[in-house]
């Protein structure tokens, strides 16, 4: 078991003929993900690493029972691509692209809500259920199957932590990247709820950062969870008012500070690691090992 994607996921790659789409298709195939088809307007009939390319999503879906799509389209075309997938009936969508305009994200999320589509991203490293399937750009080598669910805002930091877990003998059920933008699809709370329901997941690691109030909101749900949660937060040393990399990381109006997040999580019963390499130890304790 895992959440959102597993061995049964039949994957479409939108933008498969682009540099990123092409490369990560090879990586996903190498990982064993069932990449069934790709879409690239005007390139229908080609193949990429043996995967057939179609001109439109509807055309691809006439041929394959696609359940999920991953988008590698440049930012100006992401809204079009996301609407194409949703209009064609795809219910799980991973949007890797960064720099998607805010209002396009608002439009995508409103339409996803209307059609009950699960969106991961934009500006995410994707999602991986180790040993089962992968839709994303994370390195294949650092994950191993196991009982730890990981949900993160930030990519490389989550690699660091997943790698540490793997090196410590702690495998992962699913690792989800929410995406670094101000408006993204899945929230911490929604992913935590899925982990709570997933029989394989025994403990959840939440990798957050300063800015916004997603971690505070998640704390409300963590209080009600039966499974233990370990958290790590980046940004303890960030100066106020400076924008650091992505929009999520702005400290505004005294909310979303490191302190408020640590307090909320701790109060909710989560163990907060002070340094990234402490996460594995806290997970081991949570598992009662």
């Amino acid at each position, binding site marked *: 078991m895992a959440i959102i994607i597993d061995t049964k996921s039949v994957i479409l790659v939108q933008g498969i003929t682009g540099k990123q789409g092409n490369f990560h298709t090879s990586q996903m195939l190498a990982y064993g993900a069932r990449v069934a088809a790709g879409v690239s307007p005007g390139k229908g009939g080609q193949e990429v690493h043996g995967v057939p390319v179609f001109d439109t999503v509807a055309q691809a879906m006439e041929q394959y029972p696609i359940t999920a799509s991953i988008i590698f389209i440049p*930012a*100006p075309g992401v809204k079009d691509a996301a609407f194409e997938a949703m209009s064609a009936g795809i219910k799980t969508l991973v949007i890797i692209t960064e*720099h*998607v*305009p*805010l*209002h*396009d994200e*608002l*439009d995508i*999320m*409103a339409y996803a809500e*209307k059609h009950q589509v699960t969106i991961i991203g934009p500006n995410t*490293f994707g999602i991986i259920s180790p040993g089962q399937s992968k839709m994303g*750009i*994370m*390195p294949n080598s*650092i994950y191993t199957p196991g009982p730890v669910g990981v949900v*993160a*805002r*930030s*990519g*490389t*930091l*989550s*690699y*660091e932590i997943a*790698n540490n877990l793997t090196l410590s003998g702690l495998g992962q059920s699913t690792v989800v990247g929410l995406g*670094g*933008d*101000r*408006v*993204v*699809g899945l*929230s911490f709370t929604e992913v935590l709820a899925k982990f709570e329901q997933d029989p394989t997941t025994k403990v959840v690691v939440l*990798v957050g*950062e*300063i800015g*916004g109030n*997603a971690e505070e909101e998640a704390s409300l749900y963590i209080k009600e969870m039966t499974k233990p949660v370990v958290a790590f937060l*980046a*940004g*303890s*040393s*960030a*100066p106020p008012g*400076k*924008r*650091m*990399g*992505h*929009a*999520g*990381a702005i400290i505004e*109006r*005294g909310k979303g500070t490191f302190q408020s997040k640590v307090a909320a999580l701790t109060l909710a019963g989560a163990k907060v690691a*002070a*340094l*990234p*390499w402490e996460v594995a130890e806290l997970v081991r304790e949570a598992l009662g090992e």
Partner: protein
Amino acid sequence: MKLYEYMGKDIFRREGIPVPRGQAFFNSAGVADFAASLPAIVVKSQVLAGGRGKAGGIKFPASATETEVAAQELLATVIRDLPVHAVLVEEKLKIDREYYVAITVDGGKRKPLVIASAQGGVDIEEVAEEHIVKFHVDVHAGIQPHFGREVARRMGLPAAESKQFSELLVKMYNLFRKYDAELVEINPLVLSSGKLIAADAKLTIDDEAAFRYPEWLPSVEERTERELKAAAIGISFVELDGEIGVMANGAGITMATLDIINHFGGSPRNFMDAGGGAGTEATAKALEILLSTKPKTIVVNIFGGITRCDDVARAFAQVKETIGIPVPLVIRLVGTNEEAGVEILRQQGMSAYRSIDEAVAKAVELAAKEAV
């Protein structure tokens, strides 16, 4: 991208939102003539810093001549480290009441959010929560007039103002959508002889939507020269006050690296997220930018995923051979093509750590030595 007040008001005017009569001046030529056409005058420095009023950036001259003098003075001023870009000479409004209204995006709810208060004219954070009205917007409905009437009612506006307010909010929302705004804020929205007028205009445009900007849309730059240089090669870079230069790949890991520097008692000179998949050239340029800030030492934290360790190592080798690296460089290098990268570094007489804690501890130690 934040727009200056006068730019925001130009857009307001174009979209039918009432603003005071006014004109922007970049020098004092013509100021007196224009001021002479106004019944009462205010001169406002155009600067993207908050609290410009308290800093003396707004003047109320009594005559056209005084206005010219005030404009000259303000144009020569620096407010919170920012030189005054222009002055806006405007009709000074008779103020009967001051309200607050803004539209922004609530990331948590993934929806536009309207924030309004009958207590405007002050910093909205100083207004008590019970005097603030908040409504989310369904983009499939947009803002219809009824939305404004309900906000007005919750604000406690009288019927005579409700209709005006409602029309204003519809226009603000259309502008918010049309111009890819992150924020449209009017504070104060002034009631002047029965009319609602935007006495200020704060408009922030989403940088990511730049490709859709109409050509006439003005550009405002808040970043330092180095930050701009970094942006040009697709790298997020923010200058800070400490001693240790930092480069990492990914915003979260960069932030965590800063935290770890702090943890070991050091202080970061900057935030530099070299992103995922940066090649040799970009990495070399990033390193040059780092060096130009003259840090005491540099720590590099690369977890190779899309980023290839050999590319990164080659960049360091290249910079070392060309312009040289005059400060200690501590490198943590793991992940994709790690062995090749370490080998390249070795040939240049450099070595790499595998764990982040060791690397950062070393950098802090070296910086402390340099400081002696």
